[in-house]
C-alpha cells in the first residue's frame, strides 16, 4: 500500500450570501415550508426567463481576486443539460466555456509544510432543489425552495495528496470566503460542499490514473473517511489486476462506503451550449478595482500584524484570526483598553469555552468591544477582582451588559478600604487559631485557607493583594 499515492482534486460548491436567488427575486432564506420560495423562473415554468443577480457576479469576482485568479473579462453562462426532478428546467444554468475566474491558487499549511494548491477555475451556477424520499412509498417529494440559490464552484487542480491537505485547503477557502462575507460556508447546512476527484498511482510516477468523483460529503470527517476508503478501493482494484472505472460515486457515511451512481439512463453527456437567454458579462478593470478596494485584510496578513503590532502569541493570533468577526472584536477591544494580551486571554479562554458550551460559532458572538474593554479596565484598576470579572464576563457574553452598570447594581466592586479589611482579617485570625498556628509553624497552605476565609467573609469582593499583605503583617 505504501507504494501508492492518491492524487486529489476538489470541486467545492459554495452557496453565496445573497438576499435573492441567482436568476429571480425569490428569497434565499434557509428553511421555509416547501415551495414557498418559488416563482415561474425557479420552478421552470414554460416561458419564464432568467435575469442575473448582480451581487452574485460581485461575490464571484471577490472570491476570484482573493484566490489569485485571473478574472475573465468576457464571461458568460452555458446550459448543462440533464434530467432530474430537483432540476426543474432539466438544464442547469452554469458556466463551462467562459467561467468568471481562471488560474488561481491558495497556499495551505498541512503537517507544518507550506504548499500551493492551484485553482483551475471558479464558475457561477444555480443550485438544485431538494428531494425528500418517502420511507413507506416508492415516492420522492420535490421542494424547489433551494432551486436557483446562487453557487460558485471552485475547481482545483489535482494538487492534493492526502486528507490533511484536502482539509487544510477547504479550511483555507472557508476562511477566505467568510472574510469576504460571500458565504457562511457551513458544511453541515450544505452552504459549502465538496466533491472529491481521486485517483491513485505508484508513488514517484507522474502519470495520472483513472479518477472517480465522490459526492455527498457533509463533514470534514466524512471527507477524510471517504478519501481513505476510495484510495483503498482503487488500490485493491489495481492490485487485483483490474481497471478503475471513471464514474461518480456516492458516499454513505453511515455505511462508510461508496456506491456507483452510474446507470444506463445516465449518459454523462451534458451537451453544454451558450445560454441564449442571458447576454454576456463584461468585467471592466474599473469594476475589478472597485471590488478589490473593498477586499478585507485576510487572515494571514492579519495574523502576522497581530503578532507584531499587538505582541500576542502566534497561537492566539492564529485562532483569533480564524474568524473575521472575532478578530474584529479583538482589535477594537485592544485599541479601546490598550491591553491586547488581556483581550486575547479573554477571547482564547473564556470566550472559546462559552462558545463551545453553547455550541455557537464565533460569528454568532454578540457582545461589544466597548463592554469587554470596560471589564478589562475595571479589573486592571482593581475595581473588581478576577473572580467577579469572570461572572461579569458571562453577563457581557450573554446579554452584552455594561459592566459598570452591572457591578453597581449587584454591588460587586472590590473592597480596597484598608481599615475594613483589617477589621475582617483580624476577625478571621481570631476565629481560626489552629490555622494561625499552622502558618507560624511553616505550613504555607494555611495562608491560603485564611485568605479564602477572608474572601468569603467579604463576599468575594476583597482586593486579594491587600488581603495577602495585611494577613502577613498581622501574623
Amino acid at each position: 500500500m505504501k507504494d501508492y499515492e492518491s492524487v486529489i482534486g476538489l470541486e467545492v460548491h459554495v452557496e453565496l450570501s445573497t438576499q435573492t436567488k441567482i436568476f429571480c427575486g425569490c428569497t434565499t432564506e434557509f428553511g421555509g415550508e416547501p415551495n414557498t420560495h418559488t416563482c415561474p423562473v425557479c420552478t421552470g415554468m414554460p416561458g419564464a426567463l432568467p435575469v442575473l443577480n448582480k451581487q452574485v457576479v460581485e461575490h464571484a469576482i471577490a472570491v476570484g481576486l482573493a484566490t489569485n485568479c485571473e478574472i475573465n473579462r468576457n464571461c458568460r453562462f452555458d446550459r448543462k443539460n440533464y434530467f432530474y426532478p430537483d432540476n426543474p428546467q432539466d438544464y442547469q444554468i452554469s458556466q463551462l466555456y467562459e467561467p468568471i475566474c481562471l488560474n488561481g491558487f491558495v497556499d495551505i499549511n498541512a503537517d507544518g509544510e507550506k504548499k500551493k494548491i492551484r485553482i483551475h477555475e471558479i464558475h457561477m451556477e444555480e443550485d438544485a432543489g431538494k428531494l425528500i424520499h418517502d420511507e413507506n412509498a416508492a415516492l420522492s417529494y420535490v421542494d424547489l425552495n433551494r432551486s436557483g440559490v446562487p453557487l460558485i464552484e471552485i475547481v482545483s487542480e489535482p494538487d492534493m495528496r492526502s486528507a490533511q491537505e484536502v482539509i487544510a485547503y477547504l479550511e483555507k477557502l472557508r476562511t477566505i470566503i467568510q472574510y469576504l462575507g460571500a458565504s457562511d460556508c457551513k458544511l453541515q447546512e450544505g452552504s459549502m460542499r465538496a466533491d472529491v476527484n481521486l485517483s491513485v498511482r505508484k508513488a514517484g510516477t507522474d502519470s495520472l490514473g483513472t479518477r472517480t468523483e465522490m459526492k455527498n460529503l457533509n463533514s470534514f470527517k466524512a471527507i477524510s473517511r471517504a478519501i481513505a476508503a476510495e484510495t483503498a478501493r482503487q488500490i485493491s482494484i489495481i492490485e487485483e489486476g483490474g481497471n478503475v472505472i471513471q464514474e461518480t460515486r456516492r458516499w454513505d457515511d453511515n455505511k462508510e462506503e461508496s456506491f456507483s451512481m452510474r446507470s444506463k439512463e445516465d449518459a454523462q453527456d451534458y451537451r453544454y451550449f451558450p445560454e441564449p437567454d442571458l447576454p454576456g458579462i463584461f468585467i471592466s478593470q474599473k469594476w475589478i478595482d472597485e471590488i478589490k478596494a473593498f477586499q478585507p485584510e485576510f487572515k494571514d496578513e492579519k495574523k502576522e500584524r497581530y503578532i507584531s503590532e499587538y505582541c500576542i502569541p502566534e497561537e492566539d493570533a492564529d485562532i483569533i484570526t480564524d474568524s473575521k468577526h472575532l478578530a474584529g472584536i479583538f482589535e477594537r477591544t485592544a485599541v479601546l483598553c490598550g491591553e491586547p494580551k488581556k483581550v486575547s486571554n479573554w477571547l482564547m479562554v473564556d470566550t472559546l469555552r462559552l462558545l463551545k458550551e453553547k455550541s455557537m460559532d464565533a460569528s454568532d458572538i454578540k457582545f461589544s468591544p466597548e463592554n469587554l474593554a470596560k471589564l478589562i479596565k475595571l479589573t486592571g484598576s482593581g475595581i473588581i477582582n478576577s473572580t467577579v470579572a469572570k461572572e461579569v464576563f458571562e453577563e457581557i457574553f450573554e446579554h452584552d451588559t455594561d459592566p459598570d452598570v452591572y457591578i453597581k447594581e449587584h454591588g460587586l466592586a472590590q473592597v480596597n478600604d484598608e481599615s475594613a479589611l483589617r477589621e475582617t482579617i483580624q476577625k478571621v485570625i481570631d476565629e481560626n487559631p489552629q490555622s494561625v498556628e499552622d502558618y507560624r509553624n511553616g505550613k504555607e497552605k494555611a495562608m491560603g485557607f485564611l485568605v479564602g476565609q477572608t474572601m468569603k467573609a467579604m463576599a468575594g469582593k476583597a482586593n486579594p493583594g491587600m488581603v495577602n499583605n495585611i494577613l502577613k503583617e498581622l501574623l
Partner: protein
Amino acid sequence: MHRKKKTVNTWFPEQSDFAGKDDILSLMDFTAVELGEKIKSGDVSVVDAAKDCLDAIEKSEKDICAFITRIDEKEVIRQAEEIQKKIDAGELSGPLAGVPVAIKDNICTEGIRTTCASRILSDFIPPYSATVVSKLQNEGALIVGKTNMDEFAMGSTTETSYFGVTKNPWNLNRVPGGSSGGSAAAVSAHQVTFALGSDTGGSIRQPCAYCGVTGIKPTYGSVSRNGLIAYGSSLEQIGPIAKDVRDCAVILEAIMGHDTKDSTSVKRKKPGLLSSLTEDITGVRIGVPRDYFNSGTDIQIKDAVLEAVKVLTKKGAVVEEFDLSLVEYAVPAYYIIASAEAGSNLSRFDGVKYGFRTKEYNDLHQMYKRTRSEGFGDEVKRRIMLGSFVLSAGYYDAYYMKALKSKALIKKAFDSAFEKYDVILGPVTPSVAPETGTSLKDPIKMYLGDIYTVSANLAGLPAISVPCGLDEEGMPIGLQLMGDCFNEKDVLKVAYAFEKTRDYQKSPAASGGKAV
C-alpha cells in the same frame, strides 16, 4: 345593437375610392385601428365588437379551425363591458381599446389554457401572463381565444398540432402555413381584427403570405419574450398579424419595449413607428437579392414580387439588384441552432411540474421517457433528437459551432448589404400554400420552404410580409421587406407605400362565402 351598417367601404378611411365592393358585414371586417376609432367615438360599443367577433368565429370556425381555446362567450361579454366602462371613464384611450384579439397558443395567458398545440401541455393553465399579453390587456384589447399552431411552433403548415389541422381561408384544402397558422387564418377569415404570432424561422411571415394578411417579425430583442414558450430562444420574436401595415405599426408600438423580465430585451426609446406611415418613399434605397429568385421559386411568385419592384420604383424608390450570398446556408445553420435550443428548451416538459404525465411507469426514467414520447408529436421528437445530436460530445464543433460561425458570416453579409440599402426586398416563400397533407412527407422540402425567412431570424432583422397578389389558382403571394436591426421604420414605410397602391384582398371565408 346601435351599429350602423355601412355600405361605403371605409377600409382606408382617408381613401374614398377604396376599391372593395363588399358591404361591411361585420365589425371584424374593419382593421383594428378603424374599429378602435369607432369604439372611441362611440359609434359602436365594445360589446358590439365582442358580439361580432364571437359571431364571426362561430360562423367560420367549423371550416377554419383557427382556435385551440375559445374564451367562453359570457366571459368575453363580461370583459367587453368592463373595458367599455374604462373607456367611458377615460381610463382607456389607446387605439386598441375594446378591439378583439386572438393570441397564439405558445404565449402564456394567466388562467387561460396555453397548450403550444401539444398533448404534453394540453391541460396547462399558466400561473402568469406573458409581458405582451399584459401590455395588450393594459391597452384594453379583448382576448377572445388562443390560436392553433404547429406543435411547439415546429412546422410550416399548422398540421402538427395535437388539436387538429387549421385550414386556409382562401382554400380549405390548403394549409394556412405555420407555425402561426391559426393566428393568420383567424385574421384572414375576419374572425378577429388582429392576432399575435411568433416567428422563429418565418412563423409569422410565411402564414401571412399564405393567408394574404400582413405580419411583422420585429428586431430581436425589441419585444419581450417573457411568457413566450421557448422554441429557438436566440431566434424568435413575438409580432403582430393584422389586415394592414398601419395595424402592424400600431400593435407593434403597443407590445414593444424593454422588459426587466427578459434579459435579451433591448433598452431603446419608443421609435414612433406611426410617423413612418407615409407614402413618400422617394430616395429610399431598396436592394433585391438575385439569390432570392433561384430556380426553386415559383415563377408566379417571382413575377408578383418583380411587379412590386416596378411599383416601388415608380413611387420613387431607388431599387437595385445585388448578390446577398450565403442564402443556401441559412436553412442548415438555422436548423442546427433552432434544434439545439429546442432540445434544451423542451426538456422541462417532463411530467413533474405541469402538463401531461403518462399513466403507467415503474420508475423515474420510464416516467420521463413515456411522458415525453406520448406527449410530443413526431416532428417535435425529431427536432429534439437532432438537437441532442448536434450538441453531443464529439459533434458539438462540427455542427453547433459550425452553425454559429456560419451565422456570423450570414450576419456580415447583411451588414454589408445594409450599408448600401435601407430595405431588402424579396419573396416570403418559394411557393404558395400547399395542399393539406403533402408537406410532412418530405421534411427537407418543407424546411427549404423557409429559405427566404430564416435569415432574418439568424441576423435578428425586422421583416414584414405584405400581400402582393394572387397566383392563377387564387392563392395569395407575399412580399417580404427586411430592414437592418431596429430599422422597423423603413420596413413599415416601404410596406405602407406599397400597400397603398393595391386593393385589400379579402379571403373567400371572410366574404361570407365558403372558400372552395
